[in-house]
C-alpha cells in the first residue's frame, strides 16, 4: 500500500514536469491597434528566433474570447503563453487556469491584479511616463488654460495609471482647468468623434491629453476639421509610428515612448529560460516610458529608440 501511494505521488510529479512541445502562444488584447500588432509580432519573431513555433491569438478586447483562447491553448500542448491581458481583473482566472495546467504565463505591457499567478509581468511604467508628459504639458501651457482629457478603456489599469500620473502633476496648478474628460476606448475613430463633441461644448480649450496615440491622432483630425489645430496642443502616449512622424511635423506636441520591443522580447526570452529549467523570475518588472518632444524626436522611431 505504501509502495502504491509512493507510486501515485511519483507519477503525478512526472506528469507535471513532462516536457511540452516547443510552441509558444501569444495572446493579445486586440489586433485592431498597430501598437499591439507590433507587440505580438515582435514576441512571435523573438520566439521563432529562439527555436519555437508560435501562434498569435486576438482577444478583440473581449475577456470571453480570451477565455476561449486559453482553453484551446491549454489542450494544444503549448509550453508558454506570452500574454497581453484584456482586463486586469477579468483576465486573472485565465492565467490561473494556465498555471494550474503547468503552463507559465508572461504578461506584456498590461498587468493582472494578482500576485503569484503569472510567472512574470513585464510592464510599461505608464504612471511615471505620464508624470513626465504632464510636466511638459504644464510648461507648454504656461501653467494656465482650459484643457480636455480623452481616456482609454474604462477599468483598464493603463487608463487609470496614465490619467492618475498626469493629474498627480497638473492638478497642482489651479489655473489649468480640465473642462471635460471622456473615454474614447483607445480608438482613433472614437477619439475623433469625442473630440468633435467636446469642441462644440468647449471651444475655448488650448490643450488635449490623450491616453494613447491613436486617440491623439483622432483628436488632431477633429481639431483640423474645426480649424483649431494650430492653437490647441495635443499630447499622446505610446510612441506609435504616426505619432512620432506627427511630432516631427509639429502636429502633436509630445508623446510617451513605451518600448514594446523590449517587453515582447523579454517575455519570449523568459519563456525560453523557463523551458530550459529556470524558475526564479522577478514577478513584476517596470519598463520606463520616455518623453518624446520636438526637441528629441530625432532620437526615436516608431515603438522605440533609433
Amino acid at each position, binding site marked *: *500500500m505504501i509502495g502504491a501511494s509512493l507510486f501515485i505521488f511519483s507519477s503525478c510529479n512526472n506528469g507535471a514536469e513532462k516536457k511540452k512541445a516547443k510552441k509558444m502562444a501569444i495572446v493579445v488584447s486586440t489586433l485592431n491597434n498597430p501598437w499591439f500588432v507590433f507587440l505580438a509580432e515582435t514576441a512571435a519573431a523573438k520566439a521563432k528566433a529562439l527555436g519555437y513555433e508560435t501562434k498569435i491569438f486576438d482577444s478583440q478586447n473581449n475577456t470571453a474570447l480570451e477565455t476561449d483562447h486559453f482553453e484551446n491553448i491549454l489542450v494544444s500542448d503549448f509550453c508558454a503563453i506570452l500574454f497581453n491581458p484584456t482586463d486586469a481583473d477579468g483576465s486573472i482566472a485565465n492565467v490561473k487556469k494556465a498555471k494550474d495546467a503547468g503552463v507559465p504565463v508572461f504578461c506584456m505591457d498590461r498587468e493582472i491584479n494578482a500576485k503569484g499567478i503569472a510567472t512574470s509581468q513585464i510592464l510599461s*511604467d505608464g*504612471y*511615471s511616463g505620464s508624470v513626465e508628459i504632464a510636466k511638459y504639458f504644464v510648461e507648454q501651457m504656461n501653467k494656465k488654460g482650459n484643457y480636455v482629457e480623452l481616456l482609454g478603456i474604462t477599468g483598464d489599469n493603463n487608463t487609470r495609471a496614465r490619467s*492618475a*500620473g498626469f493629474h*498627480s*502633476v497638473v492638478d497642482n496648478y489651479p489655473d489649468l482647468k480640465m473642462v471635460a474628460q471622456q473615454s474614447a476606448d483607445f480608438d482613433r475613430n472614437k477619439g475623433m468623434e469625442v473630440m468633435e463633441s467636446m469642441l462644440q461644448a468647449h471651444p475655448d480649450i488650448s490643450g488635449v491629453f490623450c491616453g494613447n496615440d491613436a486617440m491623439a491622432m483622432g483628436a488632431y483630425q477633429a481639431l483640423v476639421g474645426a480649424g483649431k489645430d494650430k492653437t490647441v496642443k495635443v499630447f499622446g502616449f505610446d510612441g506609435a509610428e504616426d505619432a512620432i512622424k506627427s511630432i516631427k511635423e509639429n502636429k502633436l506636441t509630445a508623446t510617451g515612448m513605451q518600448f514594446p520591443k523590449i517587453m515582447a522580447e523579454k517575455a519570449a526570452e523568459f519563456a525560453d529560460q523557463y523551458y530550459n529549467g529556470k524558475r526564479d523570475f522577478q514577478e513584476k*518588472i517596470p519598463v*520606463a516610458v520616455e518623453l518624446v518632444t520636438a526637441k528629441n524626436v530625432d532620437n526615436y522611431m516608431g515603438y522605440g529608440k533609433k
Partner: protein
Amino acid sequence: MKKGWLKYIVFIIVAVLLAYNSVYFKKLDAKTNTTITATEANLSPVTFARSFWDNTFSKAIDSAITLESFEKEFFEKGGQVTIEKYAHSQGVSDVAYMLLKYRGKVKEITEDKIVLIVADSRTNSYVFNIGNYFGNGVRDATGLIKMGDFVNTMDYNLVSTELNKIVKTDVILPGKNKIKINDNLTIVASVEIKNGRLDGDLLPVKITINN
C-alpha cells in the same frame, strides 16, 4: 487477526505520511525580520508610505554616504562602479536614485530652490529643489520598495506620490521657514541619476541647520 492489525498499522503509517507537513505550527513572531510588503500587511498606500518613512527610510537617511566620500570613491574606483554600488533603479530604466549627504553654506533661498556652497566638493555649489517635486526619488532611492510587492501597480505609484507629500509637509515646508542666507546646513538629498550622470533633481529628505 494478525493480518487485521497489520492493515491498521499500514493505514496509520500512510495517514501519517500524508498528513506530514500539511499541518504545522509557526511562531507568530517568526516574520518580524522580513520586510512587510503592502500586500502582506494589506495597507493603503497612505499608511504604507507613512510606515516606510517613519520606520525604514529614516534609518536609510542616517546612513547616507557623504558627498566627500562618494566623490573620493567615484574618482578612485570609477563612476559606473560607484553609482551601481549606491544607486537603485527599478526594472528597465536609464534613471536611478541614491541618497547623498551634503554639508555647506546657504548662498540663496527662494520659493523653489536652495543654493548651497559646498567647500569639500569638486563642484562649488548645488541647487536643491524645494518647489514642486513629482519624481520617484523617495520611493526608489533605497531600492527597498519593489513593484512586485504590490498586487497592482497603481498602489505602487501612489506610494511614491504619498512619500513626496510627506517630504513636502515634514521636511520642505518647515525648513523653508527657518533657513536664512549664510546658514550652515546638512542636507540629505535623493539624487536623480540619468544615463550615469548626477545632474538630475536634488530633493532634500532631511535638512539640519548647524549654526
